[in-house]
């Protein structure tokens, strides 16, 4: 395969922003190919949290002193940045949680279990969801008597849209789907899915954990009702998640966590709620996390999400060509990079993915192996596990070359 002379992003400059990428692992350059699990962090993000703790650390919203006002300004400023990042009409559509997982649970409890759903109402998911978009809905089934149905995937890794049409009925109240699969890389036609969901009066919940870090998102265009993602997968700190909701969707949602910040008035045995989005932010939030996320959004915005996506398409194409064609290697998911994010699941004949990961580790290469928190999908393909390489802004084609060489080593061991 011919390597393009120049990549879309200036990777050497980007790498220089990430302290961890200066690290050597057993005298080798660190080749980090596990950004789908969590991304690395640029110094801009690390510095933003350090700066908070060193200069204006205080609790937010209620403090009547300068530190507290500065903290509040930056925390709310991060909300504004996130809103702009995904095209929300107002920062009030952005709820800070601790993770995609909490965001999805917030919807499952607040709209489902404690909210509008009735016994017999149907929730329509897909077979390719991450566990975080399966288990919360089990709760709604178990405690509210909701009925769960699932859209299957084809062998090529795309959703069976004709089955979606069959399963979607007037009884469907919630449709929930990943914008991008964390195993197959499949980019699902969520705009279309949301449109059809709305036609039967259902709301559409989108798990954007693998999408928001990697491609432009415009919530106006997608027109889903809820959209969840995580800071730690998009260059931001751990412990901060995001839930976007349309105003009317958030208004129709009960709070998950009760406590400080989220109330208007509390009396013995009864309380009334604060406005959206504060209603959903009970307790002292992850202030440093939100501020660091704001810096991450700045960093990505600076690169340009169109360029980020184009860069990853280039690497993914190269990886599909280079890795996908090695004899004895099988890759999963779409082969067309227009339908696929920078996630490459693969298996090597006679070598278990864990052993693949262990041997690559010795080469300084970090990949993931296992079920990737997607057991129903693995069952669907009858796979115990796969290896998975995933790409981000600090990766380049050379990283793919190193991976390909590592795979050859694995094949030697298990020949």
């Amino acid at each position, binding site marked *: 395969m011919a390597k393009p002379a120049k990549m879309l992003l200036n990777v050497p400059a980007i790498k220089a922003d990430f302290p961890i990428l200066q690290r050597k692992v057993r005298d080798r350059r660190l080749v980090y190919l596990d950004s789908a699990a969590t991304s690395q962090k640029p110094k801009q993000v690390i510095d933003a949290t350090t700066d908070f703790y060193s200069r204006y650390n205080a609790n937010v919203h209620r403090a*009547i002193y*300068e530190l507290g006002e500065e903290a*509040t300004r930056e925390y709310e400023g991060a909300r504004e940045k996130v809103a702009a990042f995904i095209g929300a009409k107002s920062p009030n559509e952005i709820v800070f949680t601790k993770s995609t997982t909490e965001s999805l649970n917030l919807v499952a409890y607040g709209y489902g279990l404690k909210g509008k759903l009735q016994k017999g109402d149907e929730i329509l998911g897909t077979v390719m969801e991450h566990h975080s978009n399966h288990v919360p809905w089990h709760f709604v089934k178990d405690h509210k008597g909701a009925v769960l149905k699932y859209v299957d995937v084809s062998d090529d890794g795309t959703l069976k849209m004709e089955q979606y049409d069959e399963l979607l009925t007037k009884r469907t109240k919630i449709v929930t789907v990943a914008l991008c699969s964390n195993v197959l890389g499949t980019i699902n036609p969520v705009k279309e899915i949301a449109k059809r969901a709305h036609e039967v009066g259902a709301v559409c919940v989108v798990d954007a954990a693998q999408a928001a870090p990697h491609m432009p998102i415009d919530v106006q265009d997608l027109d889903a009702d809820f959209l969840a993602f995580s800071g730690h997968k998009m260059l931001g700190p751990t412990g901060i998640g995001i839930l976007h909701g349309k105003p009317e969707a958030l208004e129709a949602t009960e709070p998950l966590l009760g406590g400080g910040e989220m*109330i*208007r008035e509390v009396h013995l045995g009864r309380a009334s709620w*604060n406005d959206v989005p504060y209603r959903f932010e009970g307790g002292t939030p992850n202030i440093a996390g939100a501020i660091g996320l704001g810096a991450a959004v700045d960093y990505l915005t600076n690169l340009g999400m169109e360029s980020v996506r184009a860069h990853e398409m280039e690497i993914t194409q190269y990886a599909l060509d280079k890795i996908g064609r090695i004899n004895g290697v099988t890759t999963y998911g779409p082969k067309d990079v227009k339908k696929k994010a920078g996630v490459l699941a693969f298996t090597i004949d006679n070598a278990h993915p864990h052993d693949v990961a262990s041997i690559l580790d010795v080469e300084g290469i970090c990949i993931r192996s296992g079920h990737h928190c997607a057991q129903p999908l693995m069952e669907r393909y009858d796979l115990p596990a796969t290896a998975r390489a995933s790409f981000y802004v600090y990766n380049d084609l050379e990283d793919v070359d190193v991976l390909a060489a590592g795979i050859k080593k694995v094949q030697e061991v298990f020949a």
Partner: protein
Amino acid sequence: MPAASDLYQEQILDHYKHPKNKGPLPGATFSARDTNPLCGDEVAFHLKVDRSQRVSDVRFEGRGCAISQASASMLTTMLKGLPLSEAEALGDDALVKKLGISLSAVRLNCALLPLHVMRLAVREKKAAST
């Protein structure tokens, strides 16, 4: 950030210590009460409107800080005699200007609570009657 003397000018302290138009208003046309959830400050606003849709009388009740209570008191003086439509349209800026001090975000909430409650009173009554 203002110095203490900037924030607590004579005028503010005067309205706080000797509020104008404080108390209930029997026969009010519009009434509402709300609290600031961040701090618990509480204001109720009552307006009486005459036949020509003018604010003929106005009172506030409440408890809270000097800023919110002085602001409520000053707001009543601004409203009296105003056509209802103008009262409704009164902007945040007008009140802040009248207060004559520069406020941080949190204290701005204190200052604007009375205006918020006044608008609530008019809006809710209207909503109920349509």
